[in-house]
């Protein structure tokens, strides 16, 4: 394969992973604050429908994104209320919402199936950046404004997490909520806020599908993407940079599958649409869990330490646990 062709495939993969980047960063923020929003599958799907319908009704793409973000935050509010205030199982509430919102999108979105609607304005390359060798064609030629928004989101989230006081507090309420509370932080209010922000980002991810990267609406339009976003957050070790990397990796797996499809005509095409999901979970299985520690234990001590710091991914210590203030 020619290198120019490869560059185009990779650039497409990076661009098409943009909705997942939004969803993964949203879930990473939520989980870093100690809350699991397992509703991602339903949130992304319902918001894809709402975003499409709102944009079509108002004839304005950006209003679609606003509506999707609001609905995403509202679903997150239900998760937050059930999990933080009522201290019920976050998994149970999130899972029920995942199914409920998927079905709701199918039921209410029925009149909008396969009709034309507004899409994000045409792609435009950034003048100077696109001429940088390799990086230009990979990141700045293919992309539209959402792709760039994705880059900004990754950078801003990383900076906020690791270079600001607010980010330090965010990580503290997910790791040691009692300590954060003792230092005067309102753990419950902050968890609400970050869960809502995360939900809004997942909502935007849905609208990014229906208004740009998978334009339009159909029955179960974004099936599977919410579940894979949840898996990528774990693969990314709750780090926004690595989560984004995971999203791009998944995009590449999908491109690879479409390339392999033409290369291996014996295997039915439908297999290649499922394969990336299976592979991604396989990668997750291989990188998390005990195997890695066991493998690392065969290495010399000094190599082991730096490698395990680079590879090991521990969840936030208080993830999924309600905070008892008294």
């Amino acid at each position, binding site marked *: 394969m020619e290198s120019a062709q490869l560059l185009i495939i990779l650039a497409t993969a990076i661009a098409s992973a943009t909705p997942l980047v939004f969803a993964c960063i949203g879930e990473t923020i939520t989980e870093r604050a100690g809350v699991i929003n*397992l509703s991602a599958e339903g949130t992304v799907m319902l918001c894809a429908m709402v975003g499409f319908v709102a944009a079509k009704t108002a004839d304005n793409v950006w209003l679609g994104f606003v509506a999707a973000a609001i609905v995403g935050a509202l679903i997150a509010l*239900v998760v937050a*209320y*059930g999990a933080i*205030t*009522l*201290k*019920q*199982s976050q*998994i*149970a*509430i999130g*899972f*029920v*919402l995942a*199914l*409920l*919102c*998927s*079905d*709701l999108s*199918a*039921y*209410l979105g*029925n009149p909008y199936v396969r009709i034309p609607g507004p899409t994000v304005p045409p792609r435009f390359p950034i003048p100077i950046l696109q001429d940088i060798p390799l990086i230009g064609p990979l990141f700045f030629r293919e992309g539209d404004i959402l792709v760039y928004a994705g880059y900004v989101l990754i950078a801003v989230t990383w900076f906020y997490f690791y270079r600001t006081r607010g980010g330090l507090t965010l990580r503290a309420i997910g790791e040691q909520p009692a300590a954060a509370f003792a230092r005067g932080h*309102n753990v*419950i*209010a902050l968890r*609400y*806020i970050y869960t809502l922000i995360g939900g809004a980002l997942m909502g935007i991810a849905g609208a990014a599908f229906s208004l740009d990267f998978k334009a339009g609406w159909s029955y179960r339009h974004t099936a*599977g993407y919410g*579940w894979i976003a*949840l*898996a990528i957050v*774990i693969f990314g070790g709750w780090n926004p940079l690595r989560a984004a990397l995971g999203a791009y990796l998944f995009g590449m797996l999908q491109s690879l599958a479409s390339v392999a499809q033409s290369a291996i005509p*014996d*295997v*039915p*095409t*439908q*297999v290649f649409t*499922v*394969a990336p*999901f*299976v592979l991604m*979970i*396989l990668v*997750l*299985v291989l990188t*998390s*869990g*005990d*195997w890695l520690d066991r493998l690392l234990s065969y290495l010399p001590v000094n190599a082991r330490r730096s490698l395990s710091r680079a590879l090991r991914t521990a969840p936030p210590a208080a993830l999924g646990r309600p905070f008892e*203030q*008294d």
Partner: protein
Amino acid sequence: MDSTAAPQTMTAPARIAGLPPAFYRVGAFVISLILVALIILISGASPVTVIGSMVSGAFGNADQIGRVIATLSPLLLCAAGLVYTFNAGLYNLGVEGQITFGAIAATWVLRLLYPEGATASLLPPPLAIALAVVVGGVGGVLWGLLAGALHVYGRISEIFAGLGLNFAATGIAIYLIFGPWKRPGVASLSGTQPFDESLWLGTFGKTEATPVALALGLIALIVTIVVMRNTYFGLRLRAVGRNLRAAYVLGVPARRQLLSAFFICGLFAGIAGALQVVGVFHRLIPNISSNLGFLGLLVVMLVNFDPLWILPVAFFFSALNVGSLQLPLSLGLESSLSGVIQGLLVLFALLGRGLAQKYGRKPEG
């Protein structure tokens, strides 16, 4: 949102003034019904007409009642199996894949015994069907234990191990349907070549309901009720679910207990998958599980993991599923409304439970 008040003042007064816990549960139930009505109104239909259409769609004639029972049977099996995993503290989202792999295994054995066109074989049809159900159960066990091993030995969340295996099972089914097991002529989403009618499970009259499937579902449920209420095994399972570490310290073989929960759930789900093949579809289709596994999870969550209440809830949910199939024909609405109703009922049951615990009057006074 504004929970800036001092921690002590947040909960204490509410408890004193609390209403009986039942008030919150009933209140949450009523709100879920109002929301269902609202959603129907948003879709431009009248709730009364829609409910009427669903009732007649589920119980209008013998065919429809038969379809409700045909949905109920595998749902009972899945729900019964999920009682074990839930009580062990596991969210076995992999149940869908366990159904699918059971169906694949059952189809495999039937294709082996009766290759396309063959009408006679080593085993007469009734025995072949029985063997297919057993092999389906074994397939479900394999898929369940795989998720269990990943969870117990690999320390991977059972949720993601299960979801991954769901994708994998669907992938295998699709590969077989479009690849090695494709219909002579064109491969299509409608599934593999249907089996000869001699390999179909007998039904009640001309309906889709099969007595064998219903009997297996009821047996699984009764066994589960007895095991959870009256055996040491059920007690240990609950102990592991309540507090894994404490149970282990007190001498409960926790790993074995968790794996047996996956084993039993996989077995029941695999049998359900096999029954979908021999009793309902008579072939392998891509969505052979028909989302019954996820529906089973909802049922068991709604009854708060107590198997005694599974039968009425599962029957109601099956009726919703079948009744909603009428909606596209009679009112031009999407049949997903059943899922919306089921989801809202379970969501508000969970929220109502939480409200009752937080604000409800405590029994002692």
